[in-house]
């Protein structure tokens, strides 16, 4: 019974940190510019993410190793330097975007410039990781994240016609703005399938000491949890499509995106949007920072974890603190948070093969998953999609930058 309760908890709290700067900004832009026609991208990306997360959870439960540890042990340090380095750089950038998004939301609530809020928000993130334990952090971030259900409420109240929404789940090629459409679909994938989420999920499985008995929980949490979170992202797209689309609003700032709440929430529009954006970004910031500690601690063999006395894991604490400090410094320079967000999600897709491909090899190794191997067909499909995505990203990103 306790396991069912924990499972439900895990699914509900998956919302926290799922809908964040990347998901909100890409969904808002996709909805306002292409209506419902990119819903399929969110759905496909979520399935992809859930499949990868489930695999990571499997290695953690059966092989008792996180993704990063498994890659080091199987491929060696020399190989790992490249994906690890790429992931760290992307995570610093993404963390900067989340801090910026959270700062913008505070600005929307207070009127005081967002740059002033970067350091205080960074400090709160640090305090959560300094004082909390895994359960508190996970559930705290998760429950706070429920405020993002505002998107679901808005989409529901707007009562969009069912048929066009349903059609949005079938991939179509638009008649115009092809580059922009391709760029947004790539960005949606990058925003949804964040590498940090994969290692974070697997590390969580280890912190919670999952075993082979918990594989069904792993599958349920991965698919239902991510699925639940993706519905919120889809709701954001739908709301933007219904409210901003007809007005031909191009979302170039978070403040503009907030307009999508006006018809449903009236004078509460900006407040609710700011809270949703802020809490989502804050949750993601906590997870990304914590994951930076996991990445370095696991790769180098340090003692790590937030369920241990902090002085016992000093290298782990120092590592995530430095990463957080780095992101705070970059964010405080004052770059446009929305632009940083779009750059990070695009970069994510480009580096994805480096992280996903080694991982897929592990899914066939008895040493890491015993008899719970993945079928070669499934693996082959995932590998092909990852490479395809990266190629598309490399083509589409320059086109967008130089065309847009």
């Amino acid at each position, binding site marked *: 019974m306790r396991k069912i309760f924990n499972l439900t908890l895990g699914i509900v709290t998956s919302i926290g940190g799922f809908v964040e700067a990347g998901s909100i900004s890409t969904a808002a832009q996709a909805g306002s510019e292409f209506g419902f026609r990119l819903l399929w991208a969110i759905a496909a990306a979520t399935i992809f993410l859930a499949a990868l997360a489930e695999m990571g959870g499997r290695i953690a439960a059966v092989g008792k190793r996180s993704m990063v540890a498994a890659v*080091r042990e199987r491929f060696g*340090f020399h190989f790992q330097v490249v994906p690890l380095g790429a992931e760290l750089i992307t995570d610093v950038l993404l963390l900067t975007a989340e801090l910026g998004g959270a700062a913008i939301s505070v600005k929307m609530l207070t009127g005081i410039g967002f740059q002033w809020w970067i350091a205080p928000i960074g400090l709160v993130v640090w305090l959560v990781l300094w*004082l909390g334990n895994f359960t508190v952090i996970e559930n705290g971030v998760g429950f706070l994240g429920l405020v993002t259900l505002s998107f679901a409420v808005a989409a529901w109240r707007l009562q969009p016609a069912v048929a066009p929404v349903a059609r949005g789940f079938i991939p179509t090629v638009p008649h115009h703005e092809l580059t922009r459409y391709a760029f947004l679909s790539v960005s949606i994938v990058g925003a949804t399938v964040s590498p940090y989420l994969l290692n974070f999920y697997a590390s969580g499985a280890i912190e919670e000491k999952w075993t082979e008995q918990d594989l069904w929980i792993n599958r349920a949490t991965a698919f239902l949890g991510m699925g639940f979170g993706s519905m919120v992202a889809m709701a954001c797209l739908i709301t933007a499509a219904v409210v901003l689309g007809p007005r031909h609003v191009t979302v170039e700032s978070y403040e503009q995106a907030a307009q999508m709440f006006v018809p449903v929430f009236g004078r509460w529009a900006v407040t609710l949007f700011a809270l949703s954006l802020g809490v989502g970004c804050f949750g993601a910031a906590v997870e990304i920072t914590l994951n930076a500690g996991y990445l370095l601690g696991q790769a180098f063999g340090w003692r790590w974890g937030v369920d241990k006395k902090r*002085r*016992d894991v*000093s290298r782990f604490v*120092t590592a995530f603190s430095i990463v957080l400090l780095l992101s705070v410094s970059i964010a405080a320079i004052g770059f446009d948070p929305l632009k940083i967000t779009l750059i990070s999600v695009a970069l994510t897709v480009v580096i994805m093969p480096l992280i996903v491909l080694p991982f897929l090899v592990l899914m066939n190794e008895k040493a890491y998953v015993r008899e719970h191997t993945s079928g070669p067909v499934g693996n082959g499909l995932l590998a092909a999609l990852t490479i395809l995505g990266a190629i598309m990203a490399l083509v589409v990103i320059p086109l967008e930058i130089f065309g847009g």
Partner: protein
Amino acid sequence: MDVVRDVLDKAVVDRNGREMGRVDGIVVAVRDGAPPRLDAILIGPVALGERLHPGVGRLVGAVERRLGLDPDRPVRVEFRDIETVERKVRVRLTVGETAAEAVEQRLRGWVGRLPGSR
């Protein structure tokens, strides 16, 4: 035993199961007329740096010396002191008998002093 597959880069734990790091390097004794003997495993950023490039190893070593860390690094564990090689490499020593935690201890001096440090 396949040394690269089963030993290199694996996590190392001491007699009590406490984390010591990872197998960052392996030293082999070359003998005349006899098969090479596995001498010791190395643990530490200097050994790891050397794997990338000798210059990197030297740089890390210089940084460690500058910080006044225990000179007994990188940590060297004789192969005879390795108990088992399974998912992790378990050694007969305790981590306190080695310099494996030198960086951890140095940082603990600061982390431990922060308020609220449990």
